């Protein structure tokens, strides 16, 4: 019973983090029709950047941050600042990548996917050069410290907080998609890119924006994720397949799909691990495979990838 409760709450926490990771991936996949294979690297880079802003890393950026006095800031402020700065930095990186590289390959989706693959190699090595190979843990800011007893088990608050953060981001994204012109354009582009272009939407500009948004979300997720997972080389290749599974299950371009999918995957991972650790990955990828074969548009998606 305790075991089940522990797994359930951990799954919920993980699901929150996965949503933060997968939402950006889903938007890009839905709009640009490509699985952004650099997404895991964006996540990892975001985590590293957050760590540097907080001065916790072995790199020069960390030195600079410490020198600038980040240690003197109230730790809560510092943490959220780090998260937002990482998001912003990744948004800039993402926007630049789309504008300078992907846009030149407009219409050649396969080539774009390959470029994102090559970029993941580049970013991974740059991170290794800058932050070295040791895992860097990040401790939660004071408001998220402490623990909450649920039933007979005691849970760290920061884990539960990831869900709230995920919900907050989900609501924010939903508001943007549903209530703003930008959101309407994105939804139009996801539904029917040809019609969208014909009706005057500057699709290429939209692509840059959404790719930047996706990267920014990944970067933000990376900092939040740094609380739960230590940031280390290989984190990108650990997280990318998870984002892929979530989005395939939930449906590309669908936020509700990414939301539901994240929790489904988190539960599958945690309970699967507990039940049969040797088939853990199997049980994650098998549903993805089945969906790709039988219902390619996923649970909530509009069209097949």
């Amino acid at each position, binding site marked *: 019973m305790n075991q089940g409760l522990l797994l359930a709450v951990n799954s919920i926490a993980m699901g929150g983090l996965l949503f933060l990771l997968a939402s950006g991936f889903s938007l890009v996949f839905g709009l640009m029709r490509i699985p952004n294979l650099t997404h895991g690297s964006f996540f990892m880079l975001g985590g590293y950047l957050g760590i540097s802003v907080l001065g916790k890393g072995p790199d020069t950026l960390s030195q600079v941050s410490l020198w600038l006095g980040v240690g003197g800031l109230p730790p809560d402020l510092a943490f959220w600042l780090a998260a937002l700065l990482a998001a912003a930095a990744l948004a800039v990186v993402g926007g630049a990548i789309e504008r300078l590289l992907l846009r030149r390959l407009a219409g050649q989706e*396969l080539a774009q996917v390959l470029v994102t693959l*090559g970029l993941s190699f580049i970013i991974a090595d740059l991170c290794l050069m800058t932050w070295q190979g040791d895992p860097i843990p990040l401790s939660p800011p004071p408001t998220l410290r402490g623990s909450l007893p649920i039933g007979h088990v005691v849970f760290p608050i920061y884990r539960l907080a990831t869900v709230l953060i995920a919900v907050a981001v989900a609501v924010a994204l939903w508001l943007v998609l549903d209530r703003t012109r930008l959101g309407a354009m994105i939804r139009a582009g996801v539904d029917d890119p040809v019609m969208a272009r014909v009706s005057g939407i500057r699709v290429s500009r939209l692509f840059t924006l959404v790719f930047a948004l996706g990267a920014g979300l990944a970067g933000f997720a990376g900092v939040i994720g740094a609380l739960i997972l230590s940031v280390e080389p290989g984190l990108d290749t650990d997280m*990318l397949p998870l984002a*892929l599974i979530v989005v395939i299950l939930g449906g590309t371009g669908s936020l509700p799909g990414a939301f539901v999918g994240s929790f489904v995957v988190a539960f599958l991972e945690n309970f699967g691990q507990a039940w049969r650790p040797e088939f853990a990955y199997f049980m994650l*990828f098998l549903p993805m*495979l089945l969906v790709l074969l039988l219902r390619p548009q996923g649970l909530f998606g509009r069209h097949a990838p």
Partner: protein
Amino acid sequence: MSLRLLAWSALALLGAVLPWIASDYYIDVASQVLIYAIFALGLNVLVGYAGLVSLGHAGIFGVAAYAAAWLVAAGFGHLPAALAALVAIVLVSALYALLSLRATGIGFLMITLAIGQILWGLAYRWIDVTGGDNGISVPSRPAPFGLSLMSAPSFYGFTVLVFLLAVLSMSGFVRSPFGASLKGTRDQPRRMTALGYNVWCIRFAAFLFSGFWSGVAGLLFCYDEQFVSPGMLTLGSSAEVLLMVIAGGSGTLAGPVVGAALVVIMKNVASAYIVRWNLVLGIIFVAIVMFMPEGLVPGSARLARWAYAEWQRRRRAPAALGSER
């Protein structure tokens, strides 16, 4: 045409004298180049000739190696282990094909990725069978007809033979009617169906052929390292061999070989001088996809032809200008 022949002859010569002029370390690197060249040639059947990009081929590579390693470690002889591995390769390739050929393009890519990840997950987590991260050690190398392959030059010789077989088979395949059918399905699948071809069957057969050679490469790898581990089947590993094919030039026979040489040499030899070889590879890959998508081999040939034509033009230009007085 003769330039190409010259290049191949020079390389063949180098390959032939290598065991006498280089140290064991470099001979082993050469063996690795050939092993990955076979792997890349196998993948190229799909990427270059069928127009299907797979990001899961490391799974086939790995299954072959694990099958042989597991059987040898369990006490079976090398011959039955190798034969069983070959059967496993065909079965796994068929599985990949049945599942992934339901799509093309990005859908195909993701299905092969998923299958590759499943196989990696099994290698990594099914510790009872695969040993997990600890891998499986292979105590000896095969001894075909009683000849030992334990020394670097002898193993190299064996690898060269297999490589030549692979190249011969590829070359025959590409020039055959079936090869032409396959290339047709790459360029105009709709029309091919209207012309009477069974596009799915053609692709299925091509997948088996592709998987076969990638699996053979996996077997050779297993014998070379005498150790198999989950690292062989990662997404990174599939990405690397794809990089070899695309960087070298898909749709040619020389391309994957050049690509394999580039990557392996960079990993082993250049890593003494260039510490961050992943970075360099990534940059080369992005540059090629963006500016020289046909790959290094055709791209360099094109550049060379352009440079030669330019040189000819400039040589003639002064005389032409002079005569226009």
